[in-house]
Every structure is written in structure tokens, then in C-alpha cells.
């Protein structure tokens, strides 16, 4: 870090690699970037922090040539430029590694790196291999150039992406939330690569919403909030402060003030634990029991292996794990959307393994999916229809198979009022609603009626802070009312706040179950990364 800081100070005195002045970008109904002015210096790891919707991704899209700003100026090495396409961005020496892998899985590493060459030229395998070796040395990684990218792990795929980003010139490297799919070891490796590259004079822009990484890797930190740049911690300040002080400062910038939303994580945690105390009757029979459940997985998926668990009425069982360790399969097999390869599922002692979605729903099991528009709702259909999507054909809204639209709409109006769903009307297509309101529709649909088991998959994914709070509140209220709750989440603070026990999924197996007491964060982390097995 010291060496990198040194390099930064030398570079910082000169011309910025990229200088943005007054960048503004509007989308329908959103001001994504509001007059952002920011400089990125050679040899510096510049962290862009901000929560979902703060405008980080838009800023990156502009630098990568995927979007054009409505106003503002971009200077690259002092020269004003317009970046009209990804090609122009690459030509300017700006390489971007996107949040989602942008490699062709069916092509080999080398073929992916050769992508984008002029089509009339023969493929230059030898030259590509030479540059590949050069960059491998620079990054300090070893990869087989002839393996199809689809067979590499995510960390290695990211290394290929970094190579490609640096391919045409080692000017600026943008990393958009690169750690979200990585294991802790992978994150550590990435940090090393970044420091190495920075020490060689590359300007690195590192986007994240994790404070810890910002402190660990950053030479300079800028904070975005609601499309604006609200503050910057230059290297001098970063070095002067310790981790706790930096965290406090950044949180203040990100959320307005340290108590902007009333609660910090600690008090929430404490209050959650207090609220849960004595809620679950330890003698009660479990409502949901899963015995040695396995699923068969297609390539690229993570199936389940011999998963067993049980949940009592009023209990919240958290399922922790890094994304892609079998969460999707667990949710779907419990909901009845996916067949079990072996094992049993019992609801109130009754075997429902062979039952489908509808039968399990009759047993009181409700599934709140993380893919709210992908499978949870039909975007083109009205809010009213979506509110009854799983009740079609049942009285009183259906009368001998005929739809009573008057009753469906009246039902919808009542639900809209009770759950504070913000929609122009019950006939509005649901795709026009915001993510938070779509989630309210799902919660209203699933948690009403005869629910006795609630199954949540990443319930706050992609929501803004206010709706995150609301959704978590609904989960806690449901449990308080006696719902046996399974909460699958990748957010540790969410699990710690809401769960009675936390089980950890690692490569499709439940590798441990911990009572949510005391300081279990570290233990969970070890289980999540397979370090404890």
C-alpha cells in the first residue's frame, strides 16, 4: 500500500488519466448522474462507493462508451474526448471489467482475447499468445490459454477479463463490483493484482458498495449518493484515519448522516435479538422438515446434496452462503418448482415431496422469489391479476371457472390500500411499478390467507434502503405471527438481524447451523468459504 501510495503521489501531481467535469445523465424518471466532477490519477486505486442506484453503474457505462452523457466534459490525459462506443473507449486505453462476466463461454481464453480484431485479418495466434504471456506475468497469474472460458472458475474468468481490459494499452482499468461473485480468497488475489497494476502506473477505478474493501484496497475514495458525488477522501486523509474512522466518515457520506435512517447495524442487531427472544417454543413440533434432500443440476448450476433442516412455527431459519452455492435450487425444490432427486420434504408431518406448487401452497407454504419480474409476476398483466396469480380458478374470485373481474379488482383495491402499494390503479401493468412496490405486491400475495411457512429468497435484493427496511419488517412480523420462515440471503447483516438460527450453504451442502447468538460473523464467514470443513 505504501508503494502504491507513493506511485499515486507522483502521478497525482501530473495530468489525471481521466478527468470528468459536470457529467449529467438522465433516464426516464431518474437523474442517474448529476453534475459529477471527478479525477482519476495514474498509479492510484480510486474507489467509487455508493449503494444501489447511487449512479456508479451509469458513470461506468459512460466511461465504457455504452452510454453517452447528456452534458459535461470528459478529458483523457488532458485531451477532451467523446466516447461514442465501446470501441472508442478501448482505443482511448480505457478497459472495463463489468459486473457480469462479458466473455463468450463457448470460446477458449485465447479466442476470447482475440475477439474484436479486424475481421479481414487472419487470427494472429502467435502474437496473441505473446501478449497473453506478457500480461500473465504482469498480473502474476497462470491460466491455460486453450481452455473454453465456460470451464474456468469465476475468479479466473475475471482475470481473463482484466487481461482483455488491459490488452490495448495499460491506461485505465475499471472494475465494476468485481468482488460480488468472488470468494474471500479470490478477493484477496484480486487485491494483489490491483496493487501490482497500480504500481506500474495504471489508473484503477474500483467500484464497490463494501466499505471494508474500499479501506483495504483504495488509495482514494469517492462517494456517490443519488447520482451526486457527495465527498472524497484523498490519500492523505485515508492514511491519517484508522478503519473505524474511515467507515464512520464514509457511512456519513453514503447515507447523509450517521443516524440518517435512525438505526445503525449494531442497534438493529440488538433490537432484532431482543424481539426474537422467547418467541419460538422449543418444544413445538417443526412445521417444515427436510430430510437428505438432493437435486440434479444442469451444467453451470449448483445442485443440492443431502440437505437436511427443520423449522418450527415462529422461527426464522437463515440460509447464508455466497451466491451460486445452491440457493436457487433450495428455494425451488422447497417451493415445488423443481423435482427432488432424492430425500423427503415434510410439512406438518405430511410428506409433500411428490406434490407440486399448488398442493404445497394448500399446505400453507409460500415462496417469495428473488426474480420478481422474471418469474414472480407477469409484467404485462395488471397489478390486480398479479395479486391473484396463484389463486386462479378458486372461489370466491372465480365462480365455476368464470372470472369475476369485479371481485378481482375489488380485492386488489383492498390489498393496495392495506399494503400501501403505490400504483396509479389496480389495472396498471405491474412492470410499470418500482421494484419496492412489486415486492409489496408479492408480499401481499404470499403472506395473506392460510400461510404457515414462508420461504424468502434474497428478499431485499435490488431494493432501496427504505424498502429494504419495510421488507425486513414484514419478515419479522410474519415470524412473530407464527410463520415458520426460511430466509435465504447473501446479506449477512440481514440474516443476523432476522434469524434465530443460521445455516450455511456451501457447494450445495449445508455445512453447519449456528444459533444466532454472540459474535458468529467470523464463524459464518469460515463456513461460507469452505474454510471450516
Amino acid at each position, binding site marked *: 500500500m505504501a508503494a502504491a501510495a507513493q506511485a499515486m503521489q507522483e502521478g497525482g501531481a501530473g495530468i489525471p488519466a481521466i478527468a470528468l467535469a459536470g457529467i449529467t445523465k438522465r433516464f426516464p424518471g431518474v437523474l442517474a448522474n448529476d453534475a459529477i466532477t471527478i479525477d482519476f490519477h495514474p498509479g492510484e486505486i480510486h474507489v467509487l462507493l455508493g449503494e444501489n442506484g447511487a449512479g456508479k453503474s451509469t458513470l461506468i457505462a459512460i466511461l*465504457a462508451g455504452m452510454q453517452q452523457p447528456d452534458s459535461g466534459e470528459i478529458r483523457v490525459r488532458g485531451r477532451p474526448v467523446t466516447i461514442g462506443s465501446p470501441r472508442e473507449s*478501448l482505443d482511448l486505453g480505457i478497459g472495463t471489467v463489468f459486473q*457480469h462476466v462479458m*466473455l*463468450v463461454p463457448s470460446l477458449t481464453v485465447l479466442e476470447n482475447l482475440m*475477439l474484436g480484431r479486424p475481421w*479481414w485479418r487472419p487470427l494472429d495466434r502467435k502474437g496473441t499468445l505473446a501478449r497473453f504471456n506478457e500480461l500473465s506475468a504482469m498480473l502474476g497469474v497462470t491460466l491455460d490459454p486453450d481452455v473454453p472460458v465456460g470451464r474456468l472458475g469465476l475468479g479466473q474468468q475475471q482475470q481473463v477479463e482484466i487481461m482483455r481490459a488491459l490488452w490495448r494499452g495499460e491506461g485505465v482499468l475499471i472494475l465494476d463490483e468485481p468482488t460480488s461473485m468472488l470468494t474471500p480468497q479470490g478477493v484477496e488475489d484480486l487485491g494483489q493484482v490491483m496493487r501490482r497494476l497500480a504500481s506500474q502506473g495504471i489508473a484503477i477505478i474500483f467500484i464497490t458498495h463494501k466499505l471494508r474493501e474500499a479501506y483495504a484496497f483504495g488509495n482514494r475514495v469517492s462517494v456517490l449518493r443519488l447520482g451526486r458525488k457527495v465527498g472524497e477522501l484523498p490519500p492523505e486523509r485515508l492514511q491519517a484515519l484508522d478503519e473505524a474512522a474511515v467507515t464512520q466518515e464514509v457511512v456519513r457520506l453514503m447515507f447523509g448522516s450517521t443516524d440518517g435512517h435512525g438505526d445503525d447495524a449494531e442497534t438493529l442487531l440488538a433490537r432484532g435479538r431482543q424481539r426474537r427472544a422467547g418467541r419460538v417454543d422449543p418444544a413445538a413440533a417443526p412445521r417444515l422438515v427436510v430430510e437428505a434432500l438432493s437435486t440434479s443440476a444442469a451444467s453451470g448450476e449448483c445442485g443440492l446434496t443431502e440437505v437436511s433442516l427443520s423449522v418450527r412455527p415462529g422461527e426464522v431459519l437463515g440460509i447464508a452462503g455466497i451466491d451460486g452455492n445452491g440457493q436457487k435450487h433450495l428455494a425451488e425444490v422447497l417451493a415445488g418448482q423443481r423435482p427432488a432427486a432424492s430425500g423427503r420434504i415434510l410439512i406438518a408431518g405430511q410428506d409433500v415431496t411428490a406434490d407440486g406448487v399448488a398442493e404445497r401452497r394448500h399446505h400453507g407454504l409460500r415462496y417469495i422469489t428473488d426474480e420478481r419480474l422474471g418469474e414472480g409476476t407477469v409484467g404485462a398483466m395488471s397489478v390486480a391479476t398479479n395479486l391473484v396469480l396463484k389463486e386462479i380458478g378458486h372461489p370466491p374470485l372465480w365462480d365455476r371457472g368464470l372470472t369475476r373481474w369485479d371481485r378481482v379488482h375489488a380485492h386488489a383495491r383492498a390489498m393496495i390500500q392495506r399494503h400501501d402499494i403505490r400504483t396509479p390503479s389496480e389495472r396498471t401493468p405491474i412492470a410499470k411499478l418500482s421494484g419496492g412496490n412489486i415486492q409489496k405486491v408479492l408480499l401481499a400475495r404470499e403472506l395473506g390467507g392460510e400461510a404457515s411457512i414462508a420461504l424468502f429468497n434474497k428478499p431485499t435484493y435490488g431494493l432501496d434502503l427504505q424498502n429494504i427496511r419495510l421488507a425486513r419488517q414484514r419478515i419479522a412480523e410474519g415470524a412473530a405471527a407464527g410463520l415458520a420462515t426460511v430466509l435465504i440471503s447473501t446479506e449477512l447483516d440481514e440474516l443476523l438481524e432476522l434469524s434465530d438460527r443460521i445455516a450455511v450453504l456451501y457447494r450445495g451442502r449445508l455445512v453447519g447451523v449456528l444459533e444466532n447468538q454472540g459474535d458468529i460473523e467470523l464463524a459464518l464467514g469460515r463456513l461460507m468459504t469452505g474454510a471450516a470443513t
Partner: protein
Amino acid sequence: MDAFLSEAFLTALLSGAITAGVPLLLAGLGEQISEKAGVLNIGLEGMMLFGAYGGFVCAYYSGSFWLGFLGGGASGLLLAALMALLCVRLGMNQIVIGIALTVGAEGLTALLHHFQFSRSYPRLDEVPALALPGLAQIPVLGPALFQHHPLVYLAVLLVPLLAWLYRRSAIGLNLESAGSKPGALDAAGVSVVATRGYAVLATGFLAGLGGAYMANVGAGLFVPFMTSGNGFIAIVLAMLARGRPVWVIFGALLFGVSLALTTALQVTGVNVPTDVVQMLPFAMVILVLVLFARHSVLPPALGLPYVRGDR
């Protein structure tokens, strides 16, 4: 039984299979290019028909088979350009436009033919065949396989050429990426729209060429609706070939045999209604689909228009 193994029968069958199979081969290879790039080109039938008419008219008035083929390819290209504009550039529904082009081409070629030739169906001269020296003298196989118009040999050469292109050239990498991960291609600085657009144009040219061969060589004349589903069979061939040109040629030959069976049977004096034999290729497609349903693999982004920044 002897009649079936007679020299005349086998020669007629093989030679007919090639004549019937070449249009399928050309159109199938063409469709494969589009499918690789992620465009499901349902308008293939229309492009073949356009090629058949354009090819026939050019050959009829110029007297040159080569100009005829060129005109056929150009006609297919014309229709493909419309498809590329509407479906690739503007992102309209590929199925609706594909059906529109096929139906429109059926009507338009029939209409044009009517106004050009009224109710007469003029024929072209005998096809100038290129007998490959040496090979053409082999009994049975020689006259069946090595006495065709040079275009046939070019069509066969196209197979290794495309196979090489797919595996070993920047064009191949671009096509593969456009179909399986268009976002990656875009991020690499190559226009997805242009890649897919050229792929559709190539498809149109090859389909037009196939149609022209069907009219000028296969039939020697143009009849309205003469492609009668060949374009759709070619789509199936491309689907089942899973991006491998060599499978297209096998498939085309197989369907060519079943199409040629009627004529070949007449040589032997066996009289089977044409309809029974006409059922063969379609029944075979269904059979193949039922048997290999699980294995037909299409690019993930097939049929979806590409929108930058859409995840």
C-alpha cells in the same frame, strides 16, 4: 428387387438426390450462419423463392447460367436486406417478419411471373455440366456424382470453407459471440448489429443461390410456389446440425435422396403416387426431431434482438 439395384436406378437416384439436395445444402448453410449469429430466419423460404424467380429471369434473358445464379443470389440478398433492416437493425419480431417475407415473396413471385410470362412456362436449355475428368468415368457413381454444374462443386467446397471460417477466423469468433453472448462482442468493440446484419445478408445470398439452382437446374423453369417447403426443411437442417457445416451436407443428401425417390422409382417402372414420396422428407424431419429432440441445441440468444445495456 433387381430393378432397385440396377445401374439406371442408382444413377438416377444419386444424381437426383444431388440435384434436389444442393438447394437444401446452400439454404441450410446460409441459415446456419444466421442461427450462429443469433437470428432465427423464418423468411428463408421466401428468400429461396425470390432467388428462384430472380435466378430464372436472369438466366432466361441472358442465356447464361452463371448470370442466373448471380441474379438469384442478388434477389435473395434483396429480401435479406429488408429482414436485416427490420429485425436486426430495428429489432422487430423475427417470426412475424419472417412469415411476412415468405408469404409476400410467394405472392409477389407468382404475380410477377404471371405478368412476365402470362400462363406459359418457358424452359431453359439443357444444363451445361462439368464432368470431372477421370472421376466421371466411374460406373454408376461417375455420372451420378461428377457430372453436374460447377456450382454443385462450389457448394460442396463451401462446407470446409465455412467450417474453417467458424473455427479459425475473426469472422467465426464474431458470429459465435453474437449468438451466444452478444454483450461480450459489443464490449469487445464489435457491432452486434453489423455482425448479425451481414450474417442475414449471407443467408439471403446463399438461399437465393439455392433457389436459383432449384429453378434453373433442378426444374429448368419457374413455377409459382416451387420451393414448397424446402426453405423450412433447410431451417430444420441448420437446427439439427448444431453449427457444424458437415452435418448440413449429410442432412441435405439424405433429404435429397428422399426427394429424388419419385423420379428414380419411375425409372424402374414402379408407380407410386408422388404424394406418398413427397411425405418422406417431412416425415423424416419429424422422426429425426422426435428421436433427437433432446439434443437439438440452439444459441442462447437466438431470436432475441440485442439491446445494449439490457441484462
